[in-house]
């Protein structure tokens, strides 16, 4: 029995056999294939080649249109490489004659080519080797991607272990057979982690080497509460986990049965509990969980799922589906928050990241840089706003001028729609995310120009404490309960109260039950959280009085260390709702 520690990104405990997923990138799962399988493997290689060519062709077109011909030409060259007759014949010869797996054969052949080019010595030829590397990665992705389809053919429950999972792989995990998953890389706020929460599958990320350490079929315990994976556990440990699993399940059942109860404190103060979603399909489930609306719809997942530009109709259709699930309640649509860690995997070239992507061209800056795409999205939102209480939210605003630019683009779009006689809602509420420290500092200036604020704690903490939580070396410096964060939240609430601007807290902080008394005590009345925790959050709210919450917040604000605040809040939650304390 041995234990690996990672970052808990989606709660719950799962016990079951490990399913080790075909490894990505340059680690090849199998070097050889059986003689009988040779023909099938050649076909598999050709299919992967064909798919890669199609994909490169699409990229070529897109890059030429959006970036210019010289960028398209790079893909044109990749296409010629993928179609190179020598490449195909040499790989197939290795499969047929040496019974190499297509992955291994491909890697060998391209490796040899790269070596030849590097040995030519000239600078510009070394660059060509990098292009080969890129091509190899793409082809391997297609080859291994097919292997990954095994996931869809599961017939028994397993715990999936992988180097990494893409958002679309995570989204398409067959829930009935996947008890949970663990990945070697990733962070708490990575989009895969966010999706795991949405799917209600326990998950742990950033656990380090597991794919090579664990064999398929080994029993593992995935502890999504404490961020642990226990490989080959003893009987006693399994029993302990089974018992706690049973308790957790009965609590969850009781909480979901309270969905029709209003989220209000004992002294009848309403606390709105809304849901964060990534996909329109989730909206209906949020309704079943008793959410008071959608507080954050992360629309960039429309792009992370697809290699194409999205049309106005595609945007509209997605928004319509969400509004249909909540026709009477608020649906806050956040405009595209692409860039940094959210780059569509098919088109990295369109999102030049620079040396420091978190501080680079991302989020609202990317939208303001590409007005066509931004306007397409705004048109769709304004049209969908006729169907319900739709609100527009701009992400990552850092200065008043940026906010004004975004709003002026929105006005332009309204004028266009009016001119074209397209029906839309001109009364839509417009708000902004509070994610950059400049905003709390100047909260009053911003409050005069928006209808609502929403504090995105993930980025606010990252930028305030200068820490990337997905980097295990510094993850310990990331703490939601840091006194600086509490002060910032309070600054925003005060500015909001003065200008009658409601403040929501979204982000991971509001999804953790122990922070609820604190946030309510700081004056927050709107929370937007991962859907599956909403029943738990409601339980906390219903056990709380406002004076009690305020005294908890006041006490927490007197503490100087994040660690002490955290311990204190955990203790308070344990007193309020012992069932929910971890």
């Amino acid at each position, binding site marked *: 029995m041995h234990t690996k520690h990672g970052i808990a990104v989606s709660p719950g405990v799962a016990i079951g056999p490990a399913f080790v997923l075909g490894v990505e990138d340059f680690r090849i799962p199998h070097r050889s294939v059986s003689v009988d399988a040779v023909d099938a493997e050649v076909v598999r290689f050709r299919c992967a080649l064909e798919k890669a060519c199609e994909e490169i062709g699409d990229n070529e077109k897109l890059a030429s249109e959006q970036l210019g011909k*010289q960028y398209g*030409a790079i893909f044109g060259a990749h296409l*010629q490489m993928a179609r190179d007759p*020598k490449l195909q*014949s040499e790989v197939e010869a290795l499969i047929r004659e040496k019974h190499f797996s297509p992955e291994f054969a491909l890697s060998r052949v391209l490796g040899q080519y790269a070596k*030849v080019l590097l040995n030519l010595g000239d600078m510009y030829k070394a660059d060509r080797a990098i292009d080969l590397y890129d091509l190899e990665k793409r082809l391997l992705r297609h080859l291994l991607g097919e292997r990954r389809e095994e996931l869809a053919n599961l017939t028994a429950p397993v715990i999936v272990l992988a180097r990494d999972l893409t958002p679309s792989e995570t989204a398409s995990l067959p829930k009935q057979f996947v008890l949970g998953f663990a990945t070697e890389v990733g962070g708490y706020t990575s989009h895969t982690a966010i999706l795991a929460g949405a799917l209600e599958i326990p998950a742990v990320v950033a656990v380090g080497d597991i794919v090579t350490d664990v064999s398929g079929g080994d029993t593992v315990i995935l502890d999504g509460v404490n961020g642990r994976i226990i490989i080959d556990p003893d009987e006693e440990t399994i029993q302990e986990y089974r018992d706690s699993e049973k308790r957790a399940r009965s609590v969850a059942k009781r909480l979901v049965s309270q969905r029709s109860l209003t989220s209000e404190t004992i002294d009848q103060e309403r606390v709105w509990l809304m849901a964060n979603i990534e996909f329109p399909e989730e909206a209906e489930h949020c309704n079943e969980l008793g959410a008071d609306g959608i507080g954050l719809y992360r629309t960039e997942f429309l792009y992370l799922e697809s290699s194409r530009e999205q049309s106005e109709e595609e945007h509209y259709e997605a928004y319509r589906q969400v509004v249909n699930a909540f026709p009477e309640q608020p649906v806050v649509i956040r405009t595209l928050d692409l860039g940094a860690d959210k780059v569509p995997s098919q088109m990295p070239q369109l999102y030049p990241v620079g040396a420091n992507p978190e501080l680079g061209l991302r989020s609202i800056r990317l939208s303001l840089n590409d007005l066509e795409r931004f306007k397409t999205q705004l048109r769709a939102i304004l049209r969908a706003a006729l169907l319900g209480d739709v609100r527009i939210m701009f992400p990552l605003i850092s200065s008043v001028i940026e906010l004004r630019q975004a709003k002026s683009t929105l006005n332009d779009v309204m004028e266009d729609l009016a001119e074209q006689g397209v029906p839309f809602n001109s009364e839509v509420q417009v708000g902004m995310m509070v994610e950059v420290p400049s905003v709390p500092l100047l909260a009053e200036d911003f409050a005069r120009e928006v209808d609502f604020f929403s504090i995105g704690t993930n980025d606010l903490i990252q930028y305030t404490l200068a820490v990337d939580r997905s980097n295990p070396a510094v993850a310990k410096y990331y703490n939601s309960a840091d006194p600086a964060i509490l002060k910032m939240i309070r600054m925003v609430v005060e500015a909001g109260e003065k200008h009658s601007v409601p403040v929501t807290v979204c982000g991971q902080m509001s999804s953790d039950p122990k922070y609820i008394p604190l946030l309510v005590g700081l004056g927050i009345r709107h929370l937007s959280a991962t859907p599956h925790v909403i029943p738990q959050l409601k339980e906390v709210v219903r056990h709380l009085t406002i004076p009690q919450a305020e005294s908890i917040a006041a006490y927490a604000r007197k503490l100087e260390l994040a660690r002490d605040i955290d311990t204190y809040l955990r203790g308070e939650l344990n007193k309020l709702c012992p069932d929910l304390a971890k």
Partner: protein
Amino acid sequence: MKSSNPSKQPTHEPMSVGSSAEMTSEMTSQREVIVNLESGLHMVPCSRIAEHVRDFEGSVCIMVEDRTVDAKSIFDLLTLRAPMGTVLTIEANGPNSADLVNGLVILFERNFETE
């Protein structure tokens, strides 16, 4: 990086199909070009060459000094050591080889429209 070419091998004999008029174009065509690209014959021009000759039924090679590469393979082309000013010899064998070679010469003359 050497191996047999899986695509059709060069055909030096007249094709059995086609009119007799085409037979005159069955011969080998050869022309010289000068690389006039600042960064030499890099990846993008190589891909243009491979693209241009891809569907040609015969064989095409490019020679520089003592080396010969298959123009249908971008990987082969990439191994040409051809900086600015290099003189290359293009040779094609097969139906309408002269047209093909002329097309390639035009690509070189127009600098592949990349620079």
